[in-house]
């Protein structure tokens, strides 16, 4: 599983970073970036789905 942040859509709500800091980081402006090329380590799939389901801007997608 991989996660991807669409930088054009991200407005820095930081929901993904607070729910899944293992998968996302934020830059100095507060915009989200995926960690580890977006690869989701085993066991963190639920957190990845939570990040997607809580992004108000629909900026995060998952590919299996």
């Amino acid at each position, binding site marked *: 599983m991989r996660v991807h942040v669409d930088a054009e859509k991200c407005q820095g709500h*930081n929901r993904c970073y*607070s*729910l899944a800091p293992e998968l996302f980081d934020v830059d100095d402006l507060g915009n989200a970036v995926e960690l580890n090329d977006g690869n989701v380590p085993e066991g963190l799939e639920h957190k990845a789905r939570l990040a997607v389901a809580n992004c108000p801007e629909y900026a995060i997608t998952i590919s299996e």
Partner: protein
Amino acid sequence: MTVNRHPPVTDFATDFDHTDPTWVNNPFPIWDELRATCPIAHSDRYGGTWLPVTHEHVSAIAYDTDNFTSRAVVVSEVRPGPLDLPAPIGVAPPITSDPPFHAMARRLLLPAFAPRKVDALEPFTRQLCNDLLDALEGKDIVDAAVEYAQHIPLRVIAKMLGFPTEDADYFRHVIHLILEEGITATEDDDERLVEGQALDAYFDNQIADHVANPRDDLTTFLLEAELDGNKLMHEHVRGTMLLILVAGIDTTWSAIGSALWHLAHNPEDLKRLAAEPDLMPFAIEEMLRAYAPVTMARLVAQDVEIGGCPMKEGDWVLLPFPAANRDPEFFDRADEVIIDREENRHAAFGLGIHRCLGSNLARMELRVAVEEWVKRFPNFELADPSAVTWAAGQVRGPRSIPVRLPG
């Protein structure tokens, strides 16, 4: 209390007014009714105002910065005049700015409100909450809004700007004038003019003091910041100070108050939260969804049709994010507060390029304030539900919450 100079509303679909006591006390049934019958309402009040109440329309307008300008974001009898800074800058950049200036003004401020900067303020906030709670110990009935919630953002923002904390009463007064009294004031209101000049003078004094004694705070940061190689215009600095005072205090105070009000009359939620602190992040987001304090506004920049409604240049549009957050088409069980709701794409901090700049700060203050309160008083309850009062205008939250503390 707001001086309401407007006649009472009898039909919210054709003559709504967000300062009407019915709306102020409980707007949710009004929005539910409109969603089912008239999802974009219109009123001739304030010179012509539209009210979308679905998530679909609220978000469409929030994203449409071509047809809707942020030059004014608080609906009032007075539209921006020739003496105000013109678009795209506006009176209080970047909230009143449009593209392309908006992105520059916002980019300048974003680092000051990024998560790691905000994390650094958490110990101060936690200590502040505990000092306030210490003062409540031993009392039977206290006001959770007046004696607790309001002090937290007042002092956090004063600390960030580097303003004297003893001026907190003055900030409260200014915010009340702008967000509540200012709505129904008219252009030739002398009091409004005098207050505006006094506030400018206050900012000028703070600026002069920071120029003479630079220090590590947001005011010095603004004075040293550069846009395109130039220092910010004096009006830009003052405008941003105004923005931070108005946007950073009343809003967070309202969110803290609403969360405590909810817990004070929902003992099962309070009990669960006290027993399962891991629920806190979800509970905080759910409080933000269900009791989002902030309704924004736009002016129509050019004639446009939204949802079949002919919006004309210069019309006001209220953007009730709290109504979008209660839309059953968008949220499962939208009218219920579910403190362990896991999927929550709420729009309490807005959508699109104007996402609340201070959302990380607000969330931290709200979480710490609720955590510390629940730790200290895990059994509090509303003392007198009928004594709870709500702020009128575009920022909604309880202004008085008498609660009984366990003896």
